[in-house]
């Protein structure tokens, strides 16, 4: 069981950047029958999403978020010891995008950089990695950049995925300091590999045929380089694992749901989050949503929700819980005492 506890490390600051272009789900008439659009929007809770231009990558959104964070908090680039980049939409297969960002952000050559890739649960796993490095002797600051541009890997004629996904980049600065206890519980079930998948890669080599769009289940159009998701199985996975993982974390840390000031969910869809809120009996005003504005931004959705909804609200001490789940299958929850975390408002690229 991966239950990890940290002391004396925490999140100093956070920021987020979204593309300037807004796509409205009310304009999805080409994909969904007009009479069902309003109902779909109400159910998934997504009115609009931000979509990156062709020449804007997750790394660009993260770069801008990082610059904002460093400016707002007067952070010397030379003080960052580790740079982590968590994404499923990196710039290249080689080299790691974190290396490009080290150079672009003007971080010293002594900075340790590497990429992490996982599913929508990725922020939690990457944040635990950031906390782990920040706990080590010799490391004071870790900059975690988590960004995704799913618009580049989702087919616009896939009615399961296209109405959901939006793009965003975020930055989280983790450092040693006078922080209380943080506990992460992280889980994996690889038997669910086919529930959320991009088929082409190394095992199924990319050929010219991989780029051919084909009609798939229920009339959805997709090529082999684009995301497939079995919505019903993901839903089943999430409702059976997420509330349990939160209850287990509370039990292990001797806390109750009433101790939690804010519970931030991966913004998968509104229907699902409402289900969790009901099941956990947590007061809805402690569960911030930004899905109506930005959609599901995959692993970036947890830090984006904090930047969007909690800017200026994390002064003082707050008990904050994070919960995320996604491809792998992979899921987890974390609870931490946040102290004077400076959250910059969301900026645009």
């Amino acid at each position: 069981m991966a239950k990890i506890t940290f002391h004396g490390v925490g999140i100093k600051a956070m920021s987020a950047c979204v593309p300037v272009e807004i796509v409205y789900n009310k304009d999805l008439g080409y994909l969904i029958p007009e009479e069902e659009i309003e109902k779909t929007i109400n159910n998934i809770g997504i009115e609009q999403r931000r979509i990156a231009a062709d020449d804007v990558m997750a790394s660009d959104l993260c770069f801008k978020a990082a610059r904002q964070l460093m400016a707002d908090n007067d952070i010397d680039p030379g003080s960052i010891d580790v740079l982590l980049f968590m994404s499923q939409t990196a710039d290249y297969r080689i080299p790691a995008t974190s290396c490009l960002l080290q150079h672009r952000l003007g971080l010293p050559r002594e900075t340790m950089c590497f990429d992490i890739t996982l599913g929508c649960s990725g922020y939690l796993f990457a944040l635990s990695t950031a906390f782990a490095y920040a706990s080590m002797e010799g490391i004071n600051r870790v900059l975690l950049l988590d960004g995704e541009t799913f618009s580049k890997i989702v087919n616009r004629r896939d009615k399961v995925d296209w109405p959901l996904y939006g793009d965003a980049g975020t930055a989280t600065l983790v450092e040693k300091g006078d922080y209380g206890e943080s506990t992460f519980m992280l889980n994996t079930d690889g038997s669910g590999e086919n529930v959320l998948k991009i088929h082409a890669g190394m095992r199924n080599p990319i050929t010219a045929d991989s780029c051919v769009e084909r009609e798939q289940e229920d009339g959805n159009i997709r090529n082999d380089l684009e995301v497939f998701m079995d919505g019903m199985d993901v839903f089943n996975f999430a409702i059976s694992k997420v509330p349990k993982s939160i209850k287990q974390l509370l039990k292990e840390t001797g806390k109750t749901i009433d101790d939690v000031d804010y519970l931030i969910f991966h913004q998968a869809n509104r229907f699902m989050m409402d289900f969790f809120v009901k099941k956990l009996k947590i007061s809805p005003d402690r569960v911030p949503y930004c899905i109506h504005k930005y959609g599901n931004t995959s692993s970036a959705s947890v830090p984006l929700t904090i930047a969007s909804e909690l800017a200026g609200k994390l002064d003082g001490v707050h008990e904050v819980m994070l919960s995320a789940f996604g491809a792998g299958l992979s899921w987890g929850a974390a609870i931490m005492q946040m102290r004077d975390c400076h959250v910059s408002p969301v900026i645009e690229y």
Partner: protein
Amino acid sequence: MNLEQFIENFADLFDETDPDTIKATTQFKELEEWSSLVALSVIAMIDEEYDVEFRGDDIRGSNTVQDLYDRVQSRVE
């Protein structure tokens, strides 16, 4: 669990469909209001009311409300 209650729980998931028209023999995918989102609410209802993990294949493999009920009942502890 009983079938009557299950049908009632199932009918509650629809906004516009008259609950009285839903019977054990109803081919639920033929209902005008049926959609992938209603399918998610079926999965949620079965989790909440019966504590049974219902998968996409369970929905795909069922045609009538009775079929759903039988699959749930076979897994109720």
